[in-house]
Every structure is written in structure tokens, then in C-alpha cells.
């Protein structure tokens, strides 16, 4: 058990002393997860809204597909994105393999079904009376859309947090598409995997604590926003 306690001790000294290697991984994670959550919310919320709000043919099968994709394994996404981005692949010319934007593409694919599915659920569970209320107050179509979105914000936010958690903690995509290159594409999770293999528990624990701290910050921020309503 001793090595674990030593690991904790070492973790704090790494964090407090501002160890550049540790902070490089933290920074890479924050950057890449911000890209991917940003783009998945930008694409996913409007799509999820449409999926939940409108009735159209094939809605149910589409819902089932989205729900299934929520369980998409990260290594499988890693494989697909790798295949597209490698220089023999169709998007090879962009040179995105082993870069942070490359990881972000994979993570966006990972987060999108969650954002779409959970936004659609939030919008579906909205009261029909809300629509009547908004139209009867004189809203036009755009205002109806924006007000409905705003009323569904709690559910959509829950989806966003779930997606952010998934993106922050995944290893498969970061490892396969990013290549775990030190100072460059090494993220918190790939670093933990590597350091643990090397028997370096200290850095692993330190990075694990940082992940937890980020999760805590996000949740505190969200509950603050909710309370303000």
C-alpha cells in the first residue's frame, strides 16, 4: 500500500511545484476537450432540438440510432478517425493525425450522440403547453425556437455535462489519434496510462486529482448557474 501513499505525496509536490510535464498534459486536455465540447454543442444542440421538437417520418429509428451511438466505443472512433486522417486516408492531406485538432475531431464524434440524444429528450419532455404559451404571447418562429431552447436549458445542460465528462476521461481516441506525444498531444488520460505502465504512480495520481478537480469546478459552476435562475 505504501507506494500509493508515496504516489499521493509525490502528486502534490508535482502539482505545487508546477512540474512542466504535468502541466503540459493538463493544458493539452483542457484545450482539446474545449474544442471538442464546443463543436459538439454547436452542432448537437440544434440537431437534438430538431429531433425532439419536430415530428417526421423515420424519427423513431433515428432516435434508436442516436441512442445506440451514445455507447460508441472510444477505440472504435479512434480507429475510424485514424483511418481517415492517416496520410493514406481521405483526409490525410490536412495533416491532422497526431495533433490536438485531430483528437478533437474524434472526441466531437464521441460527444455528439450524447448531446443530440439528451437535448432531444429534454425538448421532448417539454410541456406542449409551453408552445401554446409562447405563441400566444406573440412570438415569431425564431423567438419560439429560442424560448423553447431556453426553457429546456436544464436538460440540455445535463447532456452537455455528461458529454464533457465522457470527452475528458476518454483514452482510446487520444491515444490512437493523438499518439501520446510528450509536450504535444499527451493528455491527462494518456499520461496516466503511460505513467502507470512505467510504475510512476505519483504523476498518475496527480493527473487523476486534476481530472477530479476539473469535474468539480464544472459542476460547481453549473449548480451556481442553476441557482441563479
Amino acid at each position, binding site marked *: 500500500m505504501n507506494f500509493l501513499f508515496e504516489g499521493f505525496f509525490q502528486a502534490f509536490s508535482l502539482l505545487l511545484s508546477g512540474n512542466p510535464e504535468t502541466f503540459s498534459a493538463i493544458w493539452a486536455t483542457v484545450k482539446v476537450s474545449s474544442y471538442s465540447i464546443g463543436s459538439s454543442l454547436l452542432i448537437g444542440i440544434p440537431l437534438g432540438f430538431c429531433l425532439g421538437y419536430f415530428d417526421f417520418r423515420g424519427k423513431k429509428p433515428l432516435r434508436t440510432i442516436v441512442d445506440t451511438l451514445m455507447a460508441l466505443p472510444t477505440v472504435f472512433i479512434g480507429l475510424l478517425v485514424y483511418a481517415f486522417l492517416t496520410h493514406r486516408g481521405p483526409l490525410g492531406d490536412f495533416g491532422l493525425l497526431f495533433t490536438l485538432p485531430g483528437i478533437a475531431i474524434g472526441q466531437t464524434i464521441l460527444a455528439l450522440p450524447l448531446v443530440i440524444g439528451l437535448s432531444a429528450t429534454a425538448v421532448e419532455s417539454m*410541456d406542449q*403547453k*409551453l*408552445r*401554446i*404559451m409562447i*405563441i*400566444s*404571447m*406573440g*412570438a*415569431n*418562429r425564431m*423567438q419560439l425556437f429560442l*424560448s423553447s431552447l431556453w*426553457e429546456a436549458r436544464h436538460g440540455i445542460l445535463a447532456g452537455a455535462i455528461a458529454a464533457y465528462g465522457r470527452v475528458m476521461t476518454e483514452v482510446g481516441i487520444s491515444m490512437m489519434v493523438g499518439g501520446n506525444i510528450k509536450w504535444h498531444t499527451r493528455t491527462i488520460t494518456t499520461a496516466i496510462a503511460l505513467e502507470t505502465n512505467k510504475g510512476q504512480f505519483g504523476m498518475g495520481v496527480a493527473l487523476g486529482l486534476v481530472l477530479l478537480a476539473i469535474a468539480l469546478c464544472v459542476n460547481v459552476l453549473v449548480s451556481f448557474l442553476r441557482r441563479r*435562475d
Partner: protein
Amino acid sequence: MFWSHSCVEGIDKLDTPIFEIRSLNHSYAGKTVLEIEHLKVQPASIIGLIGPNGSGKSSLLRLLGLIERPSRGEILFNGRRVEPFSDEARFLITLLPQEPFLLKRSVLNNVLYGLKLRRNGKEVLPRANEALARVGLPAKDFSQRPWYALSGGEAQRVALAARLALKPKVLLLDEPTASVDAASAQLIKEASLQARKELGTTLIVASHDWQWLNEICDEILHLFKGKIFGTGRETIIFGPWQDFGTGKWGKFLSDRQQLLVTAPPDQEAAAVIDVLPDSENRPTIAGEEIVLSGTVSRLSLERKTGQLFATILAGDTPFTVGLTFQQGKEHTILPGKTVSIRYRLDQIKWI
């Protein structure tokens, strides 16, 4: 069917109707819920909608409120064809649905919502506060309350205040007092009437509160199975009907009196019966007339015409009888009194 509505005083009879419905047919999942050939509503009038649940009152209000588009036919507002989101109408018509629904915001922000949609900047706050005051919710106590900290009656009043603040040309009220306490009901009634008095707002009110509608309405439309068929003062008896043999149909009332009717078109048809008070010196018409006895349960006054309406319970079935003041006085029609009523078989209409 053509229903032309008289105007309230001071309004030119040649005014363009505020609403005109032409050849309207509305259905959900292939089932027709509303069928109105022609309907005109004059500006600044008060129209009551009466009818059992599922008769199409709410559907009519949703169509007039431009929430839904009719399956067929057209709705004209101020002489122009309108549909959901029409710019000519969306700021002028507002609907208060039966169950209050508030946005997940404070009371004040709920009332400000519609005003903000209209982007009329500075004057919004005083208007919101005034509207809240009208429904008996002083702004200083209520404006910062969140949506969840309100009673049912208060929520309905906030919803009404949000509509009154818009100073609408048309206010559609769907059973506004059905699920609220008596004090809230009174405030809602007063505030809606005030809007019509001060702003000339046209009110269209669906309600089961027959007495209230009688008091305030210029016209009452009776809806049944999606069709307008009368003034709301008819006695309607619902099936199922029994075949008593030898061509007689009818049903037993709860006090075992026999209510006889002509042969119904189907088991579930409803009979519209024209009931008269039974005076001793009435002319006798052989064989055609049915007399029932019942107890007067309610007397109400139609303020506009001065006519009295008595509700008479035969068993548990209510019959409505129109009387002049003189008749009421002569026969001392008072609640609690047992009276006879009569109707002619050949005047029964089936719907």
C-alpha cells in the same frame, strides 16, 4: 349555418368584423373536431362559448388564437386572412389556456416576456406592474417570486397579467376560472372585463359558468360535437335512449318520471328541447305535449335583455326555461319551488 352577432353600443354596425370564419373544418388524426360554416365576431364584443368537454371550445380558441392552422377553411382577422405567426395578428391576439403555464422565470419576467417580444423598450416595467396590480398581485410582493412559489390561482392570475400587459385587441379565455379558488376567479373576471371596457378588447370566453356568461356576454354560442348550434340556453338531453315500444322513445329520469321524445336518429344522439313554464291557463294541444314536474334550482338574469332563466331540476336533469320578469313574478318562480314544465314533442331537435 350563419351566426351574425349584434354589436355593442357605440360600435358601428358596418364595422369590419374582428374575426370571420369561413368554411372551417378542423380535425385531429382524421377525426373532425370542429366544423363552422360561417361565424362573425364584432369588435369589442364579448362572446361566450358553452358546451360539454370535448365539444370543440378549446379547439376553436386555439384556432382563433392562431396557435394552430385549421385543416380546411379560413380565418379572417380585421378582414385579412391570418394564420399562425401572421405579423398582422400575432401582437394583437392572445390566448389564456385553461391550465396556467409559466416560464421557468420570476413572476415579473413572465409578465415582461410578451412585452419584450414586442421590443417596446422603456415603458415595459410600469405596464407589467400595472397588469399585476389589476389581477390583485401587487408587484412589490410578487414580482420577484419564482414560478414555482405560486398557488394555482396565483399562477393563473400571473398568466392573465402577462396577457393584459400586452393590451391585446382580442383576449381569448379558455375556462379561465375552472381550476382556481373563488377569490382568484373574481379577480380574473373583473380584470378581463376591465380590459374590454378600457381598451375595447374583444373577449371570447369558454366557460361552464353559465351564469357568468349570461351576465357579461353579448352573444353565447353553444358548441356540441364541434358544431355551433344555438345560444347556450337550450335544454340538451343526452342519450342513450330507450325504445318504450309502440313508437315511443325516451328515458327515465332519476325520479322515475318518463321523459318522452320522438324517435332519435341514433342511440347516442342529443335532444334539444324547447321547455316552457306550465301555466294553468295555457291552451291545450292534444297528445303532443309532455308535462314534467321539477324543482327550481337557480334563477339568473340575462343583463342585456332583462330576460330571466330558471334552471329546473327534474330528478337530477336540469331544464332551462326562459321567463319574462312578469312571468317570474306571477308564478312566483323561486329556487326550491316545485313547478311544472312542458315541451312539445314535435319541436324536439336532434343533434
